[in-house]
């Protein structure tokens, strides 16, 4: 599990462009490119370095109550992908590390 208290934020050198609600994330240094669907793009936007993972999940659960049970898994999967691709950094990276083994 990714720590609820973590505050993920975009990595330096990462650019994002929103196109019709979806997103393209580009890491200028590594040339890594990601395509985010609308849900993933929304999660990305909530990763501002101030909100915790728990707060992100709570916000999304309020906005989409019918999907509340699924949201935690979706957020975790998306954050893990973004972190593995170098698009997100975490306040304490070891919290992510401990979940990836």
């Amino acid at each position: 599990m990714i720590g609820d208290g973590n505050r993920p934020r975009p990595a330096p050198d990462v650019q994002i462009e929103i196109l019709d609600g979806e997103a393209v994330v580009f890491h200028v240094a590594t040339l890594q490119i990601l395509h985010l669907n609308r849900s993933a793009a929304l999660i990305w936007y909530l990763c501002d370095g101030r909100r915790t993972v728990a707060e992100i999940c709570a916000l999304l659960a309020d906005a989409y109550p019918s999907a509340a049970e699924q949201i935690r898994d979706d957020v975790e999967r998306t954050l893990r992908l973004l972190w593995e691709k170098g698009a997100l950094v975490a306040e304490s990276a070891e919290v992510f590390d401990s979940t990836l083994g």
Partner: protein
Amino acid sequence: MPSPRRFSIPPSADGATRLVVKFADTLASIDFDDRSLAQRASSILRHCVVPCTAPTNARAHFVFQVESADESTCALISGDTAAVRGLEESALIERLIYEISLALGTGGHSSLVFHAAGLSSADRGIVLCGKSGCGKSTLSTALILAGFDFLSDELVAIRADATRMDGFPRAIALKDLTPFGGDVRVDAPDAVNATATLNGMTYLDPCTLRPGSLRRQATPRALVFPLYSTVAPPEFRRLSPAETAFLLLPRLVNTRQQVDRGFRAVTGLARMVSGFRLVYRDLAQAIAWLAQIVGE
């Protein structure tokens, strides 16, 4: 944005045969000390060659020299430094085509240059983007035979405002002619001069496939990402702008010339020009789908 290195085109050496080739707003000159080598290169580059009647006034971004070292080997010299020596003739021509494509693709463009094929129906341009081996050349050949005009087999320059695309119309490089059976007319009257074979690769002049099929520019209408597959189900679907940008950015050749490695410009292009995913195994079906989008 870094300025491209520019070279004045010096007068050619006595007896040298010169070709000057153009792609969008970039030039390269090649001097050959052997006329037969120049003719072999010209058979592949003939539609990219521009007149060079006033060499002292002209400017080029890139200068190449081809020298015959002895009866069996040649040297390719690029700019001020010796690039490659000891090449057999066919290997040299192949290397020359590669080096010129690389130089013209990466140097000095105000446009976005993509590793892609370009075709058009009237002014409505289609860009076929994909890695080598995805079937761009095969599909291009089939589209020319079906009545589309040819802009390029390898490089397409697109203005960031999507108002124009330019091609680099060197001969089409085909690894395999079998998908066409007898449909590719390599026995056309001028095929001897228009077609070359290098290390198993056949270079076909588009005008041999269909006279008058060459076109220099068009307006980009569709960015198509083709994949020839006998396994995956055939598919032709419109992509979202984000999907288009995601697939298009890795095909950008002149990334170093662009701010943010071209990210903003490519996403901007993906907003303006529709993207399509094309998975095909039947060329006729693929042509029919592509004809739809230029006919819309």
